[in-house]
């Protein structure tokens, strides 16, 4: 009786597993040879992508797959390695199972990673990185080279690795953006997310938010420029440049404060609008700040 009950239970369990198509989660590993300076493309819909730079001329992938229908596909051809998770005949169904990928890549690879809701993390990669997600969070350490990071609603946290000067373009529609210890040029845009950036040795810093607040700490090169703009977000800018910089601040209805003891003046006798123009030192750096209704605060580094 008990045996037959147990067998019945086992049959039911297997049948249920087959019906759901899930079976147990499993870990799959694949490794291919790769060009030390080649490109690596990684894509995942949901879950997590973790990219780690190493000194081996190989791409090694470990994937935790939750469903039988999921397959890990790693291909390498002519200097380009692609890492994808594919789904079975049913295709990807919303909520169709998170996949966690850990991808080791040659340190100097160009890395292109994209996801819908999977979080993306990267470390120890010195090559150019192009990371994009719809709603996943992106947390990356950036090296030299031209880096681009985009998200629609995920938060973006980036930091320079100290591996030389690069450039970064980062765009987020509603997520917050934080950039720290970046050496090189920065172009950062958010619509409603807050933007917080620390940059050194920049020739060009362009930051823009619509309603998010903007916090910028920037060290410029000799003739470097900062252009900062918000519509309604407040701005706190601390700038420095060898031998100093000139600054022009314009707001339509916001307040302007500075650390230099200077007072802003009205741009028109009859309407709103304030301006603050001046120079710190005799250098050729330029700081231009604009806002519609946000308050602006400008200080030396």
């Amino acid at each position, binding site marked *: 009786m008990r045996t037959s009950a147990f067998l019945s239970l086992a049959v039911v369990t297997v049948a249920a597993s087959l019906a759901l198509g899930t079976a147990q989660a499993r870990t799959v590993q694949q490794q291919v040879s790769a060009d030390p300076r080649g490109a690596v493309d990684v894509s995942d819909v949901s879950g997590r992508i973790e990219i780690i730079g190493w000194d081996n001329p190989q791409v090694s992938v470990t994937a935790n797959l939750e469903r039988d229908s999921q397959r890990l596909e790693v291909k390498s051809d002519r200097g380009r390695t692609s890492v994808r998770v594919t789904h079975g005949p049913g295709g990807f169904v919303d909520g169709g199972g998170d996949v966690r990928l850990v991808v080791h890549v040659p340190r100097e690879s160009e890395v292109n990673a994209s996801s819908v809701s999977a979080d993306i993390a990267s470390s120890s990669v010195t090559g150019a990185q192009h990371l994009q997600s719809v709603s996943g969070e992106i947390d990356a350490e950036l090296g030299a080279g031209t880096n681009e990071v985009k998200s629609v609603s995920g938060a973006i946290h980036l930091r320079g690795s100290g591996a030389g000067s690069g450039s970064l373009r980062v765009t987020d529609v509603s997520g917050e953006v934080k950039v720290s210890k970046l050496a090189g040029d920065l172009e950062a845009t958010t619509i409603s997310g807050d933007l917080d950036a620390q940059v050194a040795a920049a020739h060009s810093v362009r930051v823009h938010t619509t309603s998010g607040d903007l916090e910028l700490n920037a060290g410029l090169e000799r003739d470097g420029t900062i252009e900062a703009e918000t519509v309604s977000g407040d701005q706190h800018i601390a700038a420095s440049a060898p031998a100093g910089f000139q600054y*022009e601040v314009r707001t339509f209805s916001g307040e302007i404060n500075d650390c230099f003891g200077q007072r802003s003046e009205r741009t028109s006798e009859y309407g709103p609008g304030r301006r603050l*123009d001046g120079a710190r030192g005799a250098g050729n750096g330029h700081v231009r700040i604009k806002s519609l209704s946000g308050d602006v605060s400008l200080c030396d580094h």
Partner: protein
Amino acid sequence: MGLAAVKSEQVDWEAGLVQRARSGDMRAFERLYRDHVGRVYGLCLRLTRDPAGAEDCAQEAFVNAWRALGRFETRSSFGTWLHRIAVNVVLSRRRRPTEQIELSSHDVEQVESDHDWTLDTPVEVGEIESAIAALPEGARDVLVLCGIYGYSHGEAGQMLGVAEGTCKAQLHRARALLRAKLHPEV
């Protein structure tokens, strides 16, 4: 002669653009803008010593030029006409009138020989631009218009709204100040 012929062709070509712009052709006006914005901005920058202010002045000059296109006489130089407008914009933005200096009869003779602008010793561009920027407004205005942009005393005087004699005096003063600043014989 060759230069005059080339300039004549340029004026004719420009006359066509002006005519089209006058009838509302924005693309023609854009062409005029792109051809002249460098000089207008350069003029504004040297007169205002402020890059952001110079951008504003240059923009204002082109807006005013657009509005006044109907009054431009196509046989004269569009560039000169633009510069006049730009100088007007610069002057209108200054808070106080530029100081005028008196010219004594003794100075007049000296002033008449002020057209020799050759420097005995070559000077670095940055150094001379800084020296020009440090000049008092009135002297700087005339030096920029006459010394850099090649206008005569009379033309510069008309642009600045001062007498030709005043221009000559300011030019003399500018040269003396530059000489003191740069040391080489100016």
